Protein backbone atom coordinates (compact mmCIF):
# COMPACT_ATOMS: atom_id res chain seq x y z
CA UNK A 1 0.00 0.00 0.00
CA UNK A 2 1.53 3.34 -1.06
CA UNK A 3 2.34 5.88 1.63
CA UNK A 4 -0.26 8.64 1.84
CA UNK A 5 0.71 11.89 0.24
CA UNK A 6 0.97 15.11 2.30
CA UNK A 7 -2.16 16.38 0.51
CA UNK A 8 -4.11 13.28 1.41
CA UNK A 9 -3.08 13.63 5.04
CA UNK A 10 -4.15 17.27 5.07
CA UNK A 11 -7.48 16.54 3.44
CA UNK A 12 -8.04 13.76 5.94
CA UNK A 13 -7.32 16.14 8.76
CA UNK A 14 -9.76 18.68 7.36
CA UNK A 15 -12.39 16.01 7.11
CA UNK A 16 -12.04 14.89 10.72
CA UNK A 17 -11.20 18.03 12.62
CA UNK A 18 -10.82 21.75 12.46
CA UNK A 19 -7.63 22.76 10.74
CA UNK A 20 -5.93 26.14 10.82
CA UNK A 21 -3.78 27.06 7.85
CA UNK A 22 -0.86 29.27 8.69
CA UNK A 23 0.54 31.23 5.76
CA UNK A 24 4.08 32.54 5.36
CA UNK A 25 4.47 35.45 2.95
CA UNK A 26 8.23 35.24 2.56
CA UNK A 27 8.41 31.69 1.37
CA UNK A 28 7.24 29.64 -1.57
CA UNK A 29 6.65 26.70 0.75
CA UNK A 30 3.04 25.60 0.89
CA UNK A 31 1.23 26.76 4.01
CA UNK A 32 1.63 24.66 7.12
CA UNK A 33 -1.43 23.12 8.65
CA UNK A 34 -1.93 22.96 12.39
CA UNK A 35 -4.44 20.44 13.49
CA UNK A 36 -6.77 21.41 16.32
CA UNK A 37 -8.46 18.65 18.22
CA UNK A 38 -12.22 18.90 17.81
CA UNK A 39 -13.99 19.83 21.03
CA UNK A 40 -17.26 18.11 21.83
CA UNK A 41 -20.18 20.46 22.41
CA UNK A 42 -20.98 20.83 26.11
CA UNK A 43 -23.40 18.27 27.50
CA UNK A 44 -26.83 19.81 28.02
CA UNK A 45 -27.62 20.25 31.71
CA UNK A 46 -30.39 17.73 32.52
CA UNK A 47 -31.82 20.16 35.09
CA UNK A 48 -32.16 22.90 32.48
CA UNK A 49 -33.76 20.49 30.00
CA UNK A 50 -36.15 19.32 32.70
CA UNK A 51 -37.12 22.89 33.62
CA UNK A 52 -37.80 23.67 29.94
CA UNK A 53 -39.92 20.51 29.68
CA UNK A 54 -41.87 21.57 32.77
CA UNK A 55 -42.52 25.00 31.26
CA UNK A 56 -43.77 23.27 28.11
CA UNK A 57 -46.00 20.95 30.15
CA UNK A 58 -47.58 23.88 31.99
CA UNK A 59 -48.11 25.75 28.72
CA UNK A 60 -49.76 22.65 27.25
CA UNK A 61 -52.00 22.20 30.30
CA UNK A 62 -53.04 25.88 30.19
CA UNK A 63 -53.85 25.59 26.47
CA UNK A 64 -55.97 22.50 27.13
CA UNK A 65 -57.65 23.80 30.30
CA UNK A 66 -57.65 27.62 30.30
CA UNK A 67 -59.65 27.65 33.55
CA UNK A 68 -56.44 26.59 35.34
CA UNK A 69 -54.48 29.51 33.94
CA UNK A 70 -54.28 31.42 37.24
CA UNK A 71 -52.45 28.87 39.39
CA UNK A 72 -50.59 27.15 36.57
CA UNK A 73 -49.19 30.39 35.14
CA UNK A 74 -47.80 31.32 38.53
CA UNK A 75 -46.04 27.97 38.86
CA UNK A 76 -44.82 28.11 35.25
CA UNK A 77 -43.28 31.53 35.98
CA UNK A 78 -41.42 29.97 38.91
CA UNK A 79 -40.03 27.31 36.59
CA UNK A 80 -38.86 30.06 34.24
CA UNK A 81 -37.02 31.63 37.17
CA UNK A 82 -35.49 28.23 37.99
CA UNK A 83 -34.39 27.71 34.39
CA UNK A 84 -32.73 31.15 34.29
CA UNK A 85 -30.95 30.44 37.57
CA UNK A 86 -29.65 27.18 36.12
CA UNK A 87 -28.33 28.96 33.03
CA UNK A 88 -31.08 28.75 30.41
CA UNK A 89 -30.96 31.55 27.86
CA UNK A 90 -33.90 33.79 26.96
CA UNK A 91 -33.85 32.23 23.48
CA UNK A 92 -34.24 28.79 25.00
CA UNK A 93 -37.09 30.00 27.18
CA UNK A 94 -38.82 31.68 24.24
CA UNK A 95 -38.57 28.59 22.07
CA UNK A 96 -40.31 26.20 24.47
CA UNK A 97 -43.30 24.61 22.73
CA UNK A 98 -46.41 23.61 24.68
CA UNK A 99 -46.54 19.91 25.56
CA UNK A 100 -50.18 18.83 25.55
CA UNK A 101 -51.22 16.65 28.50
CA UNK A 102 -51.82 13.04 27.59
CA UNK A 103 -54.97 13.09 29.73
CA UNK A 104 -58.11 14.49 28.15
CA UNK A 105 -59.80 15.29 31.49
CA UNK A 106 -58.73 18.05 33.79
CA UNK A 107 -58.09 16.11 37.02
CA UNK A 108 -55.79 13.51 35.40
CA UNK A 109 -54.01 16.37 33.66
CA UNK A 110 -53.29 17.97 37.05
CA UNK A 111 -52.14 14.57 38.31
CA UNK A 112 -49.65 14.46 35.42
CA UNK A 113 -48.24 17.80 36.55
CA UNK A 114 -47.97 16.54 40.13
CA UNK A 115 -45.96 13.55 38.90
CA UNK A 116 -43.69 15.83 36.87
CA UNK A 117 -43.12 18.06 39.90
CA UNK A 118 -42.30 15.09 42.12
CA UNK A 119 -39.80 13.82 39.56
CA UNK A 120 -38.31 17.31 39.16
CA UNK A 121 -37.93 17.80 42.92
CA UNK A 122 -36.14 14.44 43.15
CA UNK A 123 -33.84 15.21 40.22
CA UNK A 124 -32.91 18.61 41.65
CA UNK A 125 -32.28 17.10 45.10
CA UNK A 126 -30.14 14.30 43.65
CA UNK A 127 -28.17 16.84 41.62
CA UNK A 128 -26.96 18.61 44.75
CA UNK A 129 -24.64 15.63 45.41
CA UNK A 130 -22.50 16.40 42.37
CA UNK A 131 -22.98 20.16 42.25
CA UNK A 132 -19.69 21.87 41.39
CA UNK A 133 -19.65 24.52 44.14
CA UNK A 134 -21.58 25.75 47.21
CA UNK A 135 -23.51 28.34 45.20
CA UNK A 136 -24.79 25.61 42.89
CA UNK A 137 -25.78 23.45 45.88
CA UNK A 138 -27.63 26.39 47.40
CA UNK A 139 -29.49 27.16 44.16
CA UNK A 140 -30.44 23.54 43.55
CA UNK A 141 -31.66 23.21 47.14
CA UNK A 142 -33.91 26.26 46.81
CA UNK A 143 -35.25 24.94 43.50
CA UNK A 144 -35.75 21.41 44.89
CA UNK A 145 -37.71 22.93 47.78
CA UNK A 146 -39.80 25.14 45.50
CA UNK A 147 -40.71 22.19 43.30
CA UNK A 148 -41.56 20.06 46.32
CA UNK A 149 -43.94 22.84 47.42
CA UNK A 150 -45.72 22.76 44.05
CA UNK A 151 -47.00 19.27 44.88
CA UNK A 152 -49.39 20.24 47.72
CA UNK A 153 -50.35 23.37 45.77
CA UNK A 154 -51.40 21.26 42.77
CA UNK A 155 -53.07 18.73 45.06
CA UNK A 156 -55.21 21.60 46.37
CA UNK A 157 -56.09 22.53 42.78
CA UNK A 158 -57.04 18.93 42.03
CA UNK A 159 -59.11 18.68 45.22
CA UNK A 160 -61.09 21.75 44.22
CA UNK A 161 -62.05 20.21 40.88
CA UNK A 162 -65.20 18.16 40.59
CA UNK A 163 -64.67 14.41 40.82
CA UNK A 164 -66.03 13.76 37.35
CA UNK A 165 -63.96 16.44 35.64
Amino acid sequence: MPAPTRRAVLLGAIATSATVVVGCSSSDEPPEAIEIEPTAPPEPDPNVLDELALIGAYAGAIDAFPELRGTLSTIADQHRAHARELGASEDELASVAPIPPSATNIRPAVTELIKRERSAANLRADSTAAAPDPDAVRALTFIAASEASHIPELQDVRRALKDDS
Partner: protein
Amino acid sequence: MTYTDPAVVATIQNAIRSEQNYVYACGLTGAQLNGGARRRAVAQIAARQQRIQALASMITDGDVPTTPPAFTPPIAIENARSARASLAQLNNALVGVYAQMAASTEGEDRTFAVEQAQDSARTAVQWGAASQAFPTGD
Protein backbone atom coordinates in the same frame (compact mmCIF):
# COMPACT_ATOMS: atom_id res chain seq x y z
CA MET B 1 -19.91 12.83 60.64
CA THR B 2 -19.08 15.27 63.44
CA TYR B 3 -18.28 18.72 62.08
CA THR B 4 -15.81 20.98 63.87
CA ASP B 5 -15.14 23.56 61.14
CA PRO B 6 -16.62 26.72 62.70
CA ALA B 7 -18.30 27.82 59.46
CA VAL B 8 -20.07 24.49 59.05
CA VAL B 9 -20.93 24.26 62.76
CA ALA B 10 -22.51 27.72 62.50
CA THR B 11 -24.88 26.62 59.72
CA ILE B 12 -25.94 23.57 61.74
CA GLN B 13 -26.40 25.68 64.89
CA ASN B 14 -28.53 28.08 62.86
CA ALA B 15 -30.71 25.17 61.74
CA ILE B 16 -31.07 23.95 65.34
CA ARG B 17 -32.02 27.42 66.63
CA SER B 18 -34.52 27.90 63.79
CA GLU B 19 -36.12 24.55 64.53
CA GLN B 20 -36.22 25.32 68.27
CA ASN B 21 -38.02 28.56 67.43
CA TYR B 22 -40.43 26.69 65.18
CA VAL B 23 -41.24 24.23 67.95
CA TYR B 24 -41.93 27.14 70.28
CA ALA B 25 -44.15 28.82 67.67
CA CYS B 26 -46.11 25.58 67.17
CA GLY B 27 -46.78 25.62 70.90
CA LEU B 28 -48.01 29.20 70.68
CA THR B 29 -50.46 28.29 67.92
CA GLY B 30 -52.06 25.60 70.08
CA ALA B 31 -54.37 28.17 71.64
CA GLN B 32 -55.49 29.48 68.25
CA LEU B 33 -55.84 26.38 66.07
CA ASN B 34 -58.52 23.71 66.23
CA GLY B 35 -59.21 20.32 64.74
CA GLY B 36 -56.88 19.06 62.04
CA ALA B 37 -54.72 22.17 62.04
CA ARG B 38 -54.08 21.83 65.75
CA ARG B 39 -53.27 18.13 65.39
CA ARG B 40 -50.88 18.97 62.58
CA ALA B 41 -49.10 21.57 64.68
CA VAL B 42 -48.76 19.12 67.57
CA ALA B 43 -47.43 16.42 65.23
CA GLN B 44 -44.89 18.89 63.87
CA ILE B 45 -43.58 19.61 67.35
CA ALA B 46 -42.58 15.95 67.66
CA ALA B 47 -41.20 15.78 64.11
CA ARG B 48 -39.11 18.92 64.53
CA GLN B 49 -37.73 17.75 67.85
CA GLN B 50 -36.49 14.67 66.00
CA ARG B 51 -34.90 16.95 63.41
CA ILE B 52 -33.15 18.84 66.20
CA GLN B 53 -31.77 15.56 67.54
CA ALA B 54 -30.49 14.63 64.09
CA LEU B 55 -28.86 18.02 63.66
CA ALA B 56 -27.32 17.89 67.13
CA SER B 57 -25.70 14.55 66.28
CA MET B 58 -23.66 16.29 63.55
CA ILE B 59 -21.74 18.53 65.97
CA THR B 60 -20.07 18.09 69.35
CA ASP B 61 -22.23 18.32 72.48
CA GLY B 62 -20.50 21.55 73.44
CA ASP B 63 -21.56 23.17 70.16
CA VAL B 64 -25.25 22.30 70.47
CA PRO B 65 -27.16 25.48 71.35
CA THR B 66 -29.40 25.34 74.40
CA THR B 67 -33.12 25.74 73.93
CA PRO B 68 -34.05 29.40 74.32
CA PRO B 69 -36.69 30.15 76.97
CA ALA B 70 -38.94 32.00 74.54
CA PHE B 71 -39.27 33.18 70.95
CA THR B 72 -41.25 35.99 69.36
CA PRO B 73 -42.29 35.05 65.81
CA PRO B 74 -42.00 37.77 63.15
CA ILE B 75 -45.72 37.37 62.48
CA ALA B 76 -47.54 37.72 65.81
CA ILE B 77 -49.82 34.79 66.59
CA GLU B 78 -53.16 36.32 67.57
CA ASN B 79 -55.76 34.17 65.85
CA ALA B 80 -56.05 31.12 63.60
CA ARG B 81 -55.25 33.09 60.46
CA SER B 82 -52.10 34.68 61.86
CA ALA B 83 -51.10 31.35 63.42
CA ARG B 84 -51.13 29.69 60.00
CA ALA B 85 -49.34 32.65 58.40
CA SER B 86 -46.69 32.60 61.10
CA LEU B 87 -45.97 28.89 60.74
CA ALA B 88 -45.88 29.25 56.94
CA GLN B 89 -43.42 32.15 57.18
CA LEU B 90 -41.14 30.29 59.58
CA ASN B 91 -41.10 27.25 57.29
CA ASN B 92 -40.19 29.30 54.25
CA ALA B 93 -37.39 30.92 56.25
CA LEU B 94 -36.14 27.43 57.13
CA VAL B 95 -35.62 26.68 53.42
CA GLY B 96 -32.83 29.25 53.30
CA VAL B 97 -31.34 27.92 56.53
CA TYR B 98 -31.19 24.40 55.11
CA ALA B 99 -29.93 25.60 51.72
CA GLN B 100 -27.01 27.20 53.55
CA MET B 101 -26.42 24.00 55.50
CA ALA B 102 -26.58 21.89 52.32
CA ALA B 103 -23.94 24.14 50.74
CA SER B 104 -21.56 23.68 53.65
CA THR B 105 -21.97 19.95 54.30
CA GLU B 106 -21.54 16.89 52.14
CA GLY B 107 -22.73 13.34 51.61
CA GLU B 108 -25.72 12.17 53.62
CA ASP B 109 -25.71 15.34 55.72
CA ARG B 110 -26.21 17.41 52.56
CA THR B 111 -28.98 15.02 51.52
CA PHE B 112 -30.57 15.48 54.94
CA ALA B 113 -30.43 19.27 54.60
CA VAL B 114 -31.98 19.20 51.12
CA GLU B 115 -34.78 16.90 52.31
CA GLN B 116 -35.54 19.22 55.24
CA ALA B 117 -35.58 22.22 52.88
CA GLN B 118 -38.11 20.41 50.71
CA ASP B 119 -40.23 19.40 53.68
CA SER B 120 -40.19 22.95 55.04
CA ALA B 121 -41.32 24.41 51.70
CA ARG B 122 -44.10 21.83 51.42
CA THR B 123 -45.20 22.55 54.98
CA ALA B 124 -45.29 26.29 54.29
CA VAL B 125 -47.76 25.68 51.46
CA GLN B 126 -49.80 23.35 53.66
CA TRP B 127 -50.07 26.21 56.18
CA GLY B 128 -51.47 28.41 53.42
CA ALA B 129 -48.49 30.16 51.83
CA ALA B 130 -48.26 30.41 48.07
CA SER B 131 -45.31 28.59 46.56
CA GLN B 132 -42.25 30.66 45.69
CA ALA B 133 -39.53 30.18 43.08
CA PHE B 134 -36.91 30.63 45.83
CA PRO B 135 -38.73 30.25 49.14
CA THR B 136 -37.78 32.76 51.81
CA GLY B 137 -39.42 33.96 54.96
CA ASP B 138 -39.64 37.52 53.64
